[in-house]
Every structure is written in structure tokens, then in C-alpha cells.
């Protein structure tokens, strides 16, 4: 044992430089796995860790309409039977336009308005600056507490006034931390006002977009009560949620995300493993003589393998620890770059469990991938010290290697299953990885074979460079596989981003409005049009809308007991804006039934959007009964429409045949298609809101910008992961350079002896890696194009365009990267004196 420990220590002392790549491969793999897992883990803790705070209560009942007296009494009756509720309040939420009062700045902003009543919050923190708790008095008499950013956006100060709807509010303070957190996508900054001010401000005029919530705090676990409430409220559109379910749901979602991301990390680690395998092969190759000497001096093969396994274990451990350090750096970097997008309360530390998991993974991958190369040690015969035999055995696979290969594969499967948290997902990952690798490997083989054919057309340097790619023990296909895979991931994401952004590019998509107005009253239409006309020189397109809810389908109430239906309760039970018109829009096409002629309806007829028809399980000829302002209206389904959302200005789920809804209470939506500069857009919005405070405006260009930013962050995150894959590929490249370096030194010595100049040798070097990089780039671009096409066409359902610039740049950058790395790691070879090399052979 003493011998093993001593030799391990001495080997590490002398070989650490050569094994640095081994170390880096493991560190980068472990680093990415730990960073990704920690990021999601911490995010889940920050967002979903305390679902009670997120809900600001123990359970809540949500409704998209006013609570009916019947529902309220049912709720009260059930709750009064238990004694566990110790607090209750009601809140209203909606989006609205806010603008400064008495300000020279003509600004206005969309805000996320919350009307609250004491006691608030029932759970969670509501904290003002300097750690002071929220005081409800701040909201009394038309006070408002707002997110700090709103002050900046509107150019107002604390004490200043803002107008929301028809009412004015004094900003009494800003909050530091709001209950329920700032997670999730929200259009506009949060504004808290008193619940009763909602009614007074005229915001409740448009009841349909106000969400009402009854919040409850309980002394005990509310699950039983929640189940009872749900049972009794069956058939209504009320939704009952407990924090425990939310916690479970969020927990499951985050766990799934964490596991999937860990698999991405595992992919990087597996590529790192390929690097380890290469390094271990080079290492054993270089250690052949030392191993033979040790055997000659009496050390058994088992003892020597134990020394190297110890070495691998130590390097794997230190590499993994360094990986954990890299992960921590990565998290700090994420805090610097994405601070605004991530929750404020999020931690950026790495838990002991995640770190240990990373370290165990790192060590296992080190062992799994170096086991096979290390087995070669058994076959090194001491007699090679007497005769420099080729040790053919080194290349033959005996049964022990097959067994070890199988064990390694099973080990890898185990790791994938462990990381995915599911046998099926883990197996799919490994099989998927295997198939992707196989496809890339086959492509690499085809490309290299093609290259061999065109060899005769090149100059001496090119021919030599191509020859080098076929050098015995070459790693050409493995490098093409690894670097190609990295380029593939990065380019596929970039190409998808390009296509998605094009889809939302206002300058290309003429049908997307630049401004969208809702809640214009019938009496306001004329005046509204004249304001718009004055500002932009043309009328806005106005469309009448009527608010309606579904009461019955084919005479039967909607079966909310059905789990599938209940899951879509929000989609079916909500209030819809419906319209009526004689013709189909340009972006609509019929998929069932017939469109009506221009005459008014004899019986009410309705056209239903495809997805809603599927949801309601209806087709042409069926009937739907709508509740329109308390009146029941049964309409026959005349047809089912498909909406092309890409070309849409409006997207109505239900369109009625004219002649039915004209006299129902209605408001109008309007849209402006003309492209107007941002300043003019702001001015027009302000003019409209000044004159018609009830109207809400969506600045589509701004929304698209928010979406584009989100997309860019997403792409950045995936490209970051893709970058790691490329990095692993580069490490494999460096490892393989080391593997064939002695051969290159020897070849160069011979070429120099035969009269080749350093310039020729450098050209060969650059050409070799340039060709290799170009081929990796071509593979990456090809598969990225295929994937981006398939995802655009079949998953996202968007137009797809080939981007020649991206493809060209993709190939160019990959080629350049590989060329530089290859050339730099081989540069010293050019300066070696040939005589000493030839003598030593």
C-alpha cells in the first residue's frame, strides 16, 4: 500500500501538467452541472419555496366575474363549519393605464393594479424601504403604494399624483418587497390601492378584466377544507387553490426543469468524459515504458493499475472541486448579468448536496471513462524494454475490456437515470445521445471519405494536411463529433431565434398593429376616431365587441367534474369578447361547416375557433348557449375556423352572424396599423387616455420589445450551454493533439530532413486544423438548419427562412476556432530539431 501511495504522489507531482486537460474536462463538466442545478434549485426556492407567500394566503378562491351572492353564501357556510380560518380579505387585480397628473411630461404606463383591503397580506412580507412594514393607512383616501420603477417611468415623485381610469391617486410610498414576490411575467409595474377605490375610480366598468380573489389564512392544514369547497363549488367557474398544491405543482415543475437541465450538464460532462478517455489513452501510451520498467522491477499489473486509478480519483476529485468553484463563479456572473430578470430574494450559493452530487458525478465519470484505457496497462509486457515491440495487444479488445465497456455503459446509464430522476428519461437521454453521436459520427465519416477523394486536387501542403487527418490513431471523427455537436447546439438556437424574431418584426409583419385600444364605448367611437385621425392622418379600424360567457353546450352545463375540462376551466369559464361580422377575415380559414351569406341571421349562428371547438368537443350543427349581460342566447355553431395568428390584428374565438348582437351592450376595440415613431405613439396614447380614461391601450411595439428581450435572454442562456459544449469539444481536440503529437514530431523531423521549410510545415498545420474546423462547422450548420426548420415548421408553426449569413459565419468561426486551437497546441513541434527526434525513435 505504501508503494501505491508513494508512487501515486510522485506520479501526480510529475504528470500534473500532462493531466491538466483531464482536470479541465472534469472541472468544466462538473461546473456546468452544478451551476445549472443550483440556478434552478435556488430559483425554485426563491419562487416556489414558499408558495404560501406566493399566494399571500393559505388558500384562495379566484373568480373572473363578481362573486354571486349564491356562491358567497355557499363559501361562507362551508367555512363556518370549520374553525380553522383566522383571517380573510378580498383583492381585485387588473391592468390599467396610469399617467402623471399636472406633469409636463406626456407619459403614460401600463400598470398592474391591485386593490386590497386589510388585513393584508395574510402571508408574506410587504416591506417598505429601510425595512419598515407596510401600513394600510398609506392607501386610505386615494393613496397608492407603487413599485419604485414607476416613479422613474412616469417622472413623478412620492407625494405626486397619478391618474388611473377616472380617479387620481397620491403616491404615498414605494415598496421594497411585495407579498407574492415579483416573479412571473407581468405587464407593467405594480400599484397598490384600496379595494374600494377600484369602484370609485370607475375601473370596475370593465368588470371582465378584473380578477377577484378571496384570500384566507388558516390555523391548520387547509387541504380538507379546500377539497370540500371544490366539491361544493363544482359547476361554477370559481377556482380554489391551496398553497400546498401550488407548492407541490411548482416543486414538480422546478424539479423537472432541474433534472432536464442537469441532463444538459451531463451531456457536457459526458463530452468531458470523452476528453478524459482521450487523455487517459495518451497517458497510458506515454507511460508504456515506465509501466514495463515497474513490471520488470516486480510490480504487478494490479498494483500499477491501482496507482493510476488512485491518480484518476484524486484528479477527478480535485477537478470536480474546481468545477464547483467554477459553478460558483458562474452563479455570481449570472447575478451580475441577469439580476433584473431573476427574483430579488434568490440566493446565488451552491448547496452542499448539489456540490457533493457534482463531485460524485465528476469522480464517477473520471473512473468510467478512464477504466478502459487504463486496462491497457495489464497488457503492457515488460519485454518491450528488450525489444521495442508494437504491443499489438494494446489495440485488441479482450473479454475483460468488453465487460468493462459494458459496466461503463451501465454506469453511464445509471448516472443519466439519476440525473434525470426517471429511468425512461435517463434511458432516452442516453439513447438519444447515442443516436445523435452516431448520426454526427456517420456524417463525419462520410465527409472525411469525400475529403480523401478530393485530396489529389490540392497542393503539397493541402495533401499533407489531409493525410494528417488519416494518421494512425487519428481522432478526426471524434473531434468532428464533439465540435460539430457544440456548433450544432449554438447555431440551431441562433437560427431559431432569428426565425422567431423575424416573426415578431413589426417592419416585416404589416398585419401586427402598432397600437391596440380596448373598452371604447359606443358613444366615444366618433370622438375617438377624430383624435386618432388628427394624430396620424387616418382612422383606426374599430370592431364591436360584446362580453359573453358560455353557459351550456348542446343544452348541458359544462362538466367541470371532468378532470380534463377542469384543467381548462380558466379557458372555458372566462368571459369572452365576441364580435359579429358578415365576412371571414384574411387571416381566417374555414375547416368545418359553411360561412354565412350576407343576409342577417334567422336563427343566431356562431363561428367557433378551432382550438376552442376541440376544447368544447363541438362541431358544426351543435349549439352553445351564451350568457350576455344576464340574458341567455343559444346560437347554432355554423362553422369552425382556423386562425392564422401570425397575420392577425384581432383573434376572436367566437364570431356571430350579424343580426343578433347589434343591440346587446357593447364596446369597441380599435387598432392602428400605421407605423408611428415612439414619441408620437406616446403622445397619441396620452391624448386618448386624457379624453377617454376608460380606454386601455396596448403599445404592441413595446410588448414585442419585451418579448424580444425575453427571447434574447433565453437564447443567451442556451448559447451559454452550447458554448460549454463547444469548449468540451475544444478540450477533446487538445487531448487528441497530445495523442498524436509524438507522431507529428516524427513526421515533421522527416519532412525537415527531406527539405521542408518551416513555412511549409506551418501551412500544413493550419490547413489540417482549418479543414477539420470547416468540416465540424459544416456538420454543425447542416444539422442546425435541419433542426431549426423542423422546430419552426412543426413545433412553433412559424415561417422558416434559411439564414446564409449565420451559416457562413457559423462555419467560419468554427473553422477559425479549431484552426487556432490546433495550431497553437502544436506550435512547439515546428521548432523541434530533427536530429534528436530521429535518434530517439
Amino acid at each position, binding site marked *: 500500500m505504501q508503494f501505491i501511495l508513494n508512487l501515486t504522489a*510522485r506520479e501526480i507531482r510529475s504528470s500534473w501538467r500532462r493531466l491538466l486537460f483531464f482536470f479541465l474536462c472534469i472541472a468544466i463538466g462538473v461546473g456546468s452541472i452544478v451551476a445549472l442545478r443550483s440556478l434552478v434549485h435556488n430559483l425554485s426556492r426563491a419562487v416556489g419555496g414558499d408558495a404560501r407567500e406566493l399566494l399571500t394566503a393559505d388558500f384562495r378562491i379566484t373568480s373572473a366575474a363578481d362573486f354571486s351572492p349564491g356562491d358567497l353564501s355557499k363559501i361562507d357556510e362551508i367555512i363556518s363549519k370549520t374553525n380553522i380560518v383566522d383571517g380573510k380579505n378580498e383583492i381585485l387585480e387588473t391592468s390599467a393605464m396610469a399617467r402623471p397628473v399636472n406633469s409636463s411630461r406626456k407619459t403614460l404606463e401600463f400598470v398592474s393594479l391591485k386593490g386590497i383591503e386589510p388585513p393584508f397580506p395574510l402571508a408574506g412580507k410587504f416591506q417598505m424601504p429601510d425595512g419598515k412594514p407596510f401600513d394600510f393607512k398609506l392607501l386610505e383616501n386615494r393613496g397608492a403604494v407603487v413599485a419604485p420603477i414607476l416613479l422613474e417611468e412616469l417622472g413623478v415623485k412620492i407625494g405626486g399624483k397619478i391618474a388611473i381610469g377616472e380617479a387620481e391617486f397620491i403616491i404615498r410610498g414605494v415598496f421594497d418587497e411585495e407579498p407574492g414576490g415579483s416573479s412571473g411575467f407581468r405587464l407593467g409595474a405594480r400599484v397598490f390601492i384600496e379595494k374600494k377605490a377600484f369602484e370609485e375610480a370607475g375601473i370596475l366598468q370593465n368588470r371582465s378584466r378584473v380578477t377577484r380573489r378571496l384570500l384566507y389564512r388558516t390555523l391548520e392544514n387547509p387541504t380538507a377544507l379546500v377539497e370540500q369547497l371544490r366539491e361544493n363549488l363544482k359547476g361554477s367557474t370559481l377556482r380554489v387553490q391551496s398553497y400546498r398544491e401550488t407548492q407541490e405543482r411548482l416543486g414538480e415543475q422546478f424539479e423537472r426543469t432541474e433534472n432536464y437541465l442537469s441532463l444538459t450538464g451531463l451531456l457536457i460532462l459526458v463530452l468531458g468524459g470523452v476528453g478524459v478517455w482521450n487523455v487517459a489513452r495518451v497517458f497510458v501510451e506515454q507511460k508504456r515504458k515506465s509501466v514495463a520498467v515497474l*513490471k520488470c522491477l516486480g510490480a504487478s499489473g494490479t498494483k500499477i493499475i491501482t496507482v493510476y486509478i488512485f491518480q484518476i480519483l484524486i484528479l477527478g476529485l480535485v477537478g470536480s472541486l474546481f468545477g464547483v468553484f467554477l459553478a460558483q463563479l458562474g452563479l455570481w456572473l449570472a447575478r451580475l448579468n441577469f439580476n433584473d430578470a431573476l427574483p430579488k430574494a434568490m440566493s446565488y450559493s451552491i448547496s452542499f448536496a448539489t456540490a457533493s452530487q457534482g463531485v460524485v458525478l465528476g469522480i464517477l465519470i473520471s473512473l468510467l471513462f478512464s477504466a478502459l484505457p487504463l486496462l491497457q496497462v495489464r497488457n503492457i509486457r515488460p*519485454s518491450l524494454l528488450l525489444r521495442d515491440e508494437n504491443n499489438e495487444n494494446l489495440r485488441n479488445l479482450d473479454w475483460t475490456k468488453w465487460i468493462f465497456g459494458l459496466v461503463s455503459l451501465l454506469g453511464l446509464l445509471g448516472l443519466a437515470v439519476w440525473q434525470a430522476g426517471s429511468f425512461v428519461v435517463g434511458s432516452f437521454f442516453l439513447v438519444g445521445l447515442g443516436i445523435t453521436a452516431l448520426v454526427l459520427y456517420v456524417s463525419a465519416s462520410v465527409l472525411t471519405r469525400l475529403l480523401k477523394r478530393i485530396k489529389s486536387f490540392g497542393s503539397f501542403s493541402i495533401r499533407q494536411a489531409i493525410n494528417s487527418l488519416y494518421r494512425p490513431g487519428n481522432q478526426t471523427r471524434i473531434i468532428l463529433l464533439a465540435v460539430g455537436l457544440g456548433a450544432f447546439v449554438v447555431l440551431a438556437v441562433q437560427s431559431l431565434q432569428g426565425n422567431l424574431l423575424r416573426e415578431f418584426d413589426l417592419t416585416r409583419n404589416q398585419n401586427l398593429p402598432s397600437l391596440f385600444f380596448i373598452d371604447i364605448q359606443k358613444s366615444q367611437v366618433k370622438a375617438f376616431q377624430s383624435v386618432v385621425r388628427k394624430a396620424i392622418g387616418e382612422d383606426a379600424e374599430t370592431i364591436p365587441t360584446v362580453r359573453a360567457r358560455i353557459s351550456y353546450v348542446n343544452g348541458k352545463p359544462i362538466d367541470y367534474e371532468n378532470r380534463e375540462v377542469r384543467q381548462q376551466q380558466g379557458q372555458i369559464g372566462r368571459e369572452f369578447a365576441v364580435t359579429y361580422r358578415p365576412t371571414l377575415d384574411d387571416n381566417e380559414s374555414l375547416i368545418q361547416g359553411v360561412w354565412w351569406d350576407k343576409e342577417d341571421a334567422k336563427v343566431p349562428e356562431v363561428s367557433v375557433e378551432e382550438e376552442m371547438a376541440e376544447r368544447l368537443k363541438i362541431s358544426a350543427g351543435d349549439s352553445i348557449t351564451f350568457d350576455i349581460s344576464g340574458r341567455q342566447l343559444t346560437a347554432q355553431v355554423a362553422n369552425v375556423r382556423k386562425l392564422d395568428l401570425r397575420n392577425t390584428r384581432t383573434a376572436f374565438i367566437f364570431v356571430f352572424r350579424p343580426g343578433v348582437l347589434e343591440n346587446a351592450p357593447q364596446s369597441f376595440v380599435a387598432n392602428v396599423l400605421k407605423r408611428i415613431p415612439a414619441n408620437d405613439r406616446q403622445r397619441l396614447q396620452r391624448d386618448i387616455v386624457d379624453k377617454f380614461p376608460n380606454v386601455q391601450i396596448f403599445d404592441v411595439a413595446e410588448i414585442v420589445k419585451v418579448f424580444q428581450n425575453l427571447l434574447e435572454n433565453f437564447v443567451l442562456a442556451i448559447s451559454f450551454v452550447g458554448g460549454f459544449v463547444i469548449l468540451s469539444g475544444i478540450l477533446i481536440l487538445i487531448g487528441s493533439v497530445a495523442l498524436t503529437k509524438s507522431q507529428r514530431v516524427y513526421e515533421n523531423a522527416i519532412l525537415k530532413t527531406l527539405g521542408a521549410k518551416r513555412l511549409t510545415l506551418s501551412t500544413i498545420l493550419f490547413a489540417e486544423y482549418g479543414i477539420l474546423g470547416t468540416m465540424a462547422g459544416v456538420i454543425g450548420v447542416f444539422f442546425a438548419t435541419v433542426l431549426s426548420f423542423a422546430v419552426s415548421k412543426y413545433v412553433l408553426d412559424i415561417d422558416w427562412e434559411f439564414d446564409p449569413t449565420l451559416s457562413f459565419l457559423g462555419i467560419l468561426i468554427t473553422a477559425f476556432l479549431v484552426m487556432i486551437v490546433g495550431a497553437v497546441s502544436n506550435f512547439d513541434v515546428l521548432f523541434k530539431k530533427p536530429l534528436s527526434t530521429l535518434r530517439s525513435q
Partner: protein
Amino acid sequence: MIDIKNVTKTVRSGTENLTILDNVSLEIPSGQFVAVTGASGSGKSTLLGLIAGLDAPSSGEVVIDGEKITAMSEDDLATLRSEKIGFIFQSFHLIPSLTAFENILIPMEILGLKDAKERAAKLLEDVELTNRGHHYPSELSGGEQQRIAIARAFANRPMILLADEPTGNLDSKNGNHILDLMIGLHQKNEVTLVLVTHDINLAAKAQRQIRLRDGRVLSDN
């Protein structure tokens, strides 16, 4: 005592079988200094390798100190070498990643000797390289490397010392120094010394000379 009985060694060369040793039988008593000579390719080094158990014969037997080594496993052979055989190579074969001192230490550590460090220091002194112990092989001259190799070969007090052209890579001055050192240690430790060389003058210093040609014993006197 080394007993070689009807040993033949055949290797595959391309598509043909090449006989390197052809039915060789020899007995070398303990403590004898034997020189094995012959032209290049006569089978000298192969014979030495078979005695050390570095390779296995195609047929025949090698018996060392009463033990039939041709029937031993790789690990048993390693133990045998560790305990009974020292080896000196023409190209030294020091482990490049270890210092001179550590190279001497290795066989003793494999055997698990307690006083390994003291003995390694003593051996360094015997080969007059005490001040070079911390140097790596690449920092030593050829002669110095071979002296370290000799010290390493004597580390476990072997019964048999096998030397394969130990002076082949050295100039005459260094060569003579190495030879004197080896013979001195052989006499002092009473070990059997089998020296492979093609240098007639060197062979003349041995008690017995065996000449090989085309894998057969041409003369033994």
C-alpha cells in the same frame, strides 16, 4: 541456480514464424559470472528476458532456484523478479517522472522493505552519486543514469543480476567504470551475473562465456 531446458522462442514476423531461440539448454550455477555473446539478432537479449520472466518461451522450461518460472502467472513472476532478480538495460530505463533517489527506492517499496530510504541512500553512495539523488533522469548523463540503474538493480539484494549490453550506450571510460562497478558489486554480494554483450574484451572478464548464433549455443566455455 538457473536451469534452462530445451527452450525455443518463436515469434510471428509478418506472415512467417521466426525462431529466435532454438532448443537452448543451459545450467548456470549460483554466484557465477557468465557473459553471453553473439551477433545482433542471435537471441542474446531474448534469452536474458526469458531468464527474468519478462517473456515466456514457446516451448521448454526455465527454472530459477528450483522454481519452474514458465508455469508462473504474471503476478507471481513480478514477485519473483522483485525478490530474486535485478536487471540492467542498455538504455537504462529509469522512470523519467521520478528522481534518481526515488528510482532506487521503487523496488524496495514494491517489496515493502522497512529501511528502504536508508538503503537507497547507501546504494547512491556505492555508485558515488549521493549529491545527484534529487535529480531527474533527464538531468543526468548517460553514465550517471546507468549507475543509478545499477544501484536500482541491487536494491533488493537479488540472487541474480541480468545485464543487457549495460555499456552499449556509453563511451569507453564510462563503460569501464560501469563494468568495474558491476563486477565489484557481484563479488561483494556473491550474486549470479549474466551479462549480455557483443564486446569480446568485456566478455573476457567473465568466468564463463556462452556464444550464440541464430538462436543456438555455438560455444560454452
